């Protein structure tokens, strides 16, 4: 698997660390309540299809990226800087 880093270009998957579903771009407010925080920390959509996920280019530029990847085929459709995704959704 290769990931198209927005800064470094196409790189081997081994340069990246997988963190999980990209829930952190929409983190609940500190006072959002126990249910919202349980939902954020533990519960996942876990789709058998397209999935937004956070990867860290730890052996490269150090950027956090949101990778849109198909979990049944491993095809990657889109890679964005996590910062840009967060700003766009704000």
């Amino acid at each position, binding site marked *: *698997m290769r990931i198209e880093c927005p800064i470094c270009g196409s790189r081997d998957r081994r340069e990246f660390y997988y963190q999980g579903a990209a829930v952190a771009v929409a983190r609940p407010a500190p006072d959002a309540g126990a249910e919202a925080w349980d939902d954020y920390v533990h519960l996942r959509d876990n789709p058998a299809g397209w999935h937004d*996920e956070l990867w860290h280019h730890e052996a490269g530029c150090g950027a956090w990226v949101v990778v849109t990847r198909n979990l049944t085929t*491993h095809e990657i459709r889109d890679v964005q800087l996590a910062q840009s995704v967060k700003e766009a959704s704000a």
Partner: protein
Amino acid sequence: MTVGMQMRFSALKILAEGLTGNKGWTAHWRDPQPKPEYDIVIIGGGGHGLSCAHYLAKEHGITNVAVLEKGYLGGGNVGRNTTIVRANYGLSGNSEFYSHSLKLWEGLEQDLNYNVMLSQRGIINLCHSDGQRDAFIRRGNAMVNQGDDAIFLTPDALQKMLPFLDYEQSRFPIFGGLYHPRGGTARHDAVAWGYARGASSRGVDLIQQCEVTGIDVSEGKVTGVQTTRGPIRAKKVAMMGAGRSSQLAEMAGMRLPVESHVLQAFVTEGLKPCIDHVISYGAGHFYISQSDKGGLVFGGDLDMYASYAARGNLPMVEHVAEAGMTLMPMIGKAKMLRSWGGIMDMSSDGSPIIDRTHIDGLHVSCGWCYGGFKAVPAGGHVMAHLLATGQHHPAAAKFRLDRFRSGRGIMDEEATGSQHNLH
């Protein structure tokens, strides 16, 4: 088609059939049409679903039950694992459950009249630092306190048992090993087939090629399922779909605390007997045993990203092979024959969930991570208990769905509690 068609397996029967052309063997289970309604519908004809059906029928006398399987019986993870059976957990919650499971394993062949080839060859977990040795001794004490067996082996004792390990690796020398003599392996397919036969012969309908496409809920209560073979009404439904649990839960409008990951396993060509135990490497992710056919069966870590692809990528193949060569250089001359991947429902604390849901009558068993096979007897047994009595079995009382929200996680096997793949 009668329910009571089941033959008994025995040495005499094998001898008699062998002398008469093996013409007397019959199908191990019936192939029924789905009925319009059952008392209990189990979604998933894998190890846990079939085991649950067997114990519902045998221990609780509940036989108006269907097991719905979208593929064929035993075609999922129960036929794709590395067949290890063990009760070597250290935390309350898991300890009593896996201890319960190992005891069921030990009586399973008599219970099922089926040869599951349980081989209690012993498991040895190797340690490679002072801290890891202390942690293993503590875990061994916990296992003994639970009533199971654990022996700490010094490097001298290990060298007599496992002369082929590289004890003096410059980076990770072997400090000792935690030996669990009652652990071992079992023939995975036979476990599924034995439970299927046990359930079917008591009247449970095992329905293959029947994919659940919807879960019917009315006024907060489950009423049945929609399937590719038509709607089926049910008073109770148990979702036992392993790696596909999230898709089932979504049909009921639920999200689960699991993420599905791929775990690879490998087997070499058949060799003469050379590895007598199940051995795990404590300084890298690698574990190995030798099958009865002679192949070395081994595996390592998750590929570490979410996946439903049932196949892995090459970086983990390389990592597992490197770890194996570091630990036991002798396997370097064996040719790897096949590799495969299974889909693991990874819970965020590394422990499973066996519970009711907020929907009346709807139950869930999931979060088996990469350890569902050894749990097959107990996982089905305690779910059958919950379905039949409405009470949690004492051996599985802590596997609650709400434990993440309430903070009562069971963080075994180095789990973090929030990231689903980190344990």
